[in-house]
């Protein structure tokens, strides 16, 4: 079985600036790959290359054995965007029912709502939700179609500790079910708790990768992060 995700020597410039600069990484089925990096390191751009929204200038991206961006590959992945990702007036229950209807087999929406604690605000317009509540809805939307590979772009940003732990538990369940999870995060403890493999990005390049144990043999993950990365920009 090919890797769930292969990013091979991808280079991409936007507005004359190299955003991805020879990035390579692999995401395996049944594993959590945490992509760490400061703001502007290229994490979100990498995900956009994986969904075909951006085409690399060089290198290639393979998703579930197919070129990134093909309709059949995109139908088998889930995406939790970093910000918004929903119509401002849509209600969470309505959004999730709509997303579920796009799939032949989807998770029962009511069960998903209950599992993520969305019940209390399931009928509140998306624009009136807190950032953390929006994150939970986005996460539910990413997995409602039972994907083989799911991208979680900073999944716990803005969540309170209870919700954060609930999300961690769900990520572990996804891994146990055989789903390949690629998550980006700034939270070192999140990577340490969840990741089978960590990829550290800086200025569009992978500057370190390995298991948490391998990377932290000599120093903590945060120290390594500070040593190997430069302060983030605004990209």
């Amino acid at each position: 079985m090919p890797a769930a995700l292969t990013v091979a020597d991808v280079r991409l410039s936007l507005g004359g600036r190299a955003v991805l600069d020879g990035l390579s990484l692999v995401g395996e089925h049944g594993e959590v790959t945490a992509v760490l990096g400061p703001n502007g390191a290229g994490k979100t751009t990498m995900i956009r290359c994986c969904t075909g929204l951006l085409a690399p200038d060089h290198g290639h991206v393979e998703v579930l054995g197919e070129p990134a961006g093909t309709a059949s590959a995109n139908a088998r992945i889930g995406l939790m965007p970093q910000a918004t990702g929903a119509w401002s007036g849509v209600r969470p229950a309505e959004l999730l029912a709509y997303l579920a209807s796009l799939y032949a087999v989807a998770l029962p929406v009511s069960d998903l709502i209950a599992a993520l604690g969305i019940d209390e605000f399931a009928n509140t317009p998306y624009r009136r939700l807190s950032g953390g509540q929006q994150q939970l809805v986005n996460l539910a939307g990413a997995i409602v179609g039972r994907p083989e590979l799911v991208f979680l772009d900073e999944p716990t940003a803005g969540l309170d500790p209870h919700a954060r732990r609930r999300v961690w538990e769900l990520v572990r369940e996804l891994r146990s079910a055989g789903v390949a999870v690629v998550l980006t995060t700034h939270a070192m403890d999140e990577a340490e708790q969840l990741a089978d493999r960590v990829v550290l990005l800086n200025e569009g390049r992978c500057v370190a990768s390995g298991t948490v144990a391998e990377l932290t043999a000599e120093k903590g993950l945060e120290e390594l992060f500070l040593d190997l990365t430069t302060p983030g920009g605004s990209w």
Partner: protein
Amino acid sequence: MSALDLRPAAAPAPWARRVLRHALMETRLVIRNSEQLLLAVVIPLGLIVAGVLAGDRLGLAREPFVASVIALGLWSSGFTSPAITTAFERRYGVLERLVATPLRRSDLLAGKATMIALLAVGQATVLVVAGLLLGWTPTAVAAQVVVAVAVVPLALVTFAGLALTLAGRASAEVTLGLANLIYLVGAAGGLLVPVASFPSWAQPMLRLLPTAALGETLRALATGLFDPVPLLVVLGWAIASVALARKVFRWIS
């Protein structure tokens, strides 16, 4: 541990279901938006009522005026509404989100087209019924009915293509401002104001506008005239606007 069965099983729903569900989703959101309802139904209804009640004093002939207002309504459903909703879909990352689903780009466009058709049919029904109840008595000839049946969908395709061209490049705020401005310009450019009202030197240029093509077609339909020329105009515009939208549209802002 949740009770969810998370084992991978992703597979797309049938094409028709994807398109229909997307169309219904967008239609619900548009209907809930009071500003868009204002443009689509409330303003045209108000114009029809005002035109019928005060038309004689203002020198407005009832038959062409009601037809003009229906054309104006279709303009808002075909252009203004899709432009604004699509621009905010880009702004809020909805399109980026939907890329990672079984909804293909062609499905999304088909869903939007279905939404526009649903809105246009609903809106035209309301306006026609309101006009008839207020004494509107269109006198159509059969040949012009055929022309109108072809011109209306082609005009809607044209308007939608222009809407996607604008919304696919400009920011949400710029699109919001420009779409409303263009709505007013279109209203003056052959929709509410007949081409014959303009100076003779301007009329040939105005007749080449898709807004004028739609307005003139519906006015001819309501007054018993036959005018097939607008069909050629909107056919050209439909092809050009769709090609332009395909070329310039960006899915992310």
